[in-house]
Each structure stands twice: as structure tokens, then as C-alpha cells.
């Protein structure tokens, strides 16, 4: 359950991070690959070494989708419709990986925002990313 204030906070944070979407996205992915080696199996067709073009463009895509969703959280199912289909029928990523990625995104935010990533911001962001992942997985079955 997200309060109005939390939704504002989430939108603010992603708005601020959109200019560095590539950096944030790539870092979160790299953290996930380092901590959950199984997640790399979904990227066997790409070059996911640090600072590779594939990694950065992929990270950017993910962050921009998260940022877009944050602009109107009540409309997540609408905003994510096409991505839901992509993930369910083509990518078929095991949803536990969404959890791993969300955690690594939170760690990335902490490393970048330092003390600005307050417990309240963390709680709000964790809730948002969980909701995002849940909506993303809705068409899986």
C-alpha cells in the first residue's frame, strides 16, 4: 500500500535518476550478475561485461520503464501491458529474478544516494518495485 506522499517520493527519485538511467541500470544488472550467477543465463546472447554497450543499453531500458511506471503508479497494469506480454511469452524469466533485481536496484540506489536513501525512501521504493514486479509477472499464468 503506497501513500500519496510515498508515490510523490518515488516519482521524484526516478525523475532525478532518469538522466543517469544507463549508469543506474547497468550497475543494478552487474550487481545481480555478481550476486546471483543464475540470472546470467538469461543473457547468454548478449555481452554483459562491465561497460559493454549491451549492458548499458539494457540497463537503460529497464530503468526508463521503471521511471515511466513511477509517473502514475495507479496505472501500472496499463503502462506495463506490452512488457507483461514480452516477459510472459518471450522472455519467460523466472519471477524470483525480479526479486533479485529489485534488491540490487535498492543497493544501487543506496550506493548512489547514500544518506538521501532514507529508511522511508527505501520502504517506498521496495514497495513500488515489488508492485512493479508483480504486475510484470501477471500474464505468466
Amino acid at each position: 500500500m503506497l501513500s500519496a506522499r510515498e508515490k510523490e517520493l518515488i516519482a521524484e527519485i526516478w525523475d532525478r535518476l532518469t538522466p543517469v538511467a544507463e549508469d543506474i541500470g547497468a550497475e543494478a544488472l552487474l550487481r545481480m550478475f555478481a550476486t546471483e550467477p543464475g540470472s546470467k543465463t538469461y543473457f547468454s546472447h548478449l555481452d554483459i561485461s562491465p561497460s559493454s554497450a549491451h549492458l548499458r543499453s539494457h540497463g537503460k531500458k529497464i530503468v526508463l520503464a521503471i521511471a515511466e511506471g513511477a509517473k502514475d503508479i495507479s496505472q501500472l497494469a496499463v503502462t506495463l501491458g506490452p512488457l507483461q506480454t514480452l516477459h510472459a511469452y518471450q522472455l519467460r524469466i523466472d519471477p524470483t529474478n525480479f526479486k533479485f533485481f529489485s534488491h540490487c536496484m535498492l543497493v544501487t540506489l543506496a550506493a548512489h544516494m547514500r544518506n538521501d536513501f532514507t529508511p522511508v525512501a527505501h520502504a517506498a521504493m521496495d514497495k513500488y518495485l515489488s508492485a512493479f514486479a508483480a504486475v510484470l509477472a501477471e500474464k505468466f499464468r
Partner: protein
Amino acid sequence: MVEWTDFERATIADIFSKIQYEVVGPAALARCLVVYPWTQRYFGNFGNLYNAAAISGNPMVAKHGTTILHGLDRAVKNMDDIKATYAELSVLHSEKLHVDPDNFKLLSDCLTIVVAAQLGKAFSGEVQAAFQKFLAVVVSALGRQYH
């Protein structure tokens, strides 16, 4: 027996030498109580946990957070037998405190995030992996004596 690489041993020792226990411990526990409010069930006698500000300013939370981090020290100094190191604490958390062991993971995630905020760029993916592996071993040891 857990196998630790030289990098992992050095990384864990390095992190614990760099962080201030009286800052990180309280911050991690407070964060856990804010981000996962149901964990407050174990701290009924800690007084005011009414909102994030109250939690972050609560002296009992701070004291307990510091205690927890000093407890982690024991694992840092005994990385080759963390299971035995925490056998008693595991019994305590199970028999006396009745803490659901799933909560250990929640606290360890909050600790990871607090350390990331402290170390910034230095908390690379590889460092994070080593730290998370260490905490996973601790969490497993703390849950080991439950039955």
C-alpha cells in the same frame, strides 16, 4: 564447511574494519523496523516505534542495533566455523525469543543497504556478493538450531 576465497576473507575483514558499529548497527535495525514494520512485533517493550522518525531516534533500537553488529563480529573472527559460533544464539532466538528465522534475512538485506550507503562506489558488485554470502552463512547458522 563454507569455502571462502582470499578475496572474500579480505573483503569481509575490510568492511568490518571500515564501518562504525554504533552508526551502522542502529541504522540497520531501524531501517528493518521501518521497511518491514511487522518485525516490530519482537520489540513490544522498546517504547515509541510509531513512525520512522521515532524509530530512528529510539535509544533502545540504537542500543540493540549496536549489540547485533558486535554479535556479527564473532562470525568475522571465526569465519571457518560460523555454525558453531552461533549455536547458542540460535537456540536463544528459537526457544526464548521465538523469532521467525525469515526475519534474519530481512535484517541482513537492510544491513547490506546501510553498508552500501556508507561505502558508496567502493561497495562494488563483487564486494556486495562477498558480503551477502557472509550474511547468508550467518543467517543459516542462526536458524540452524530451530526445531
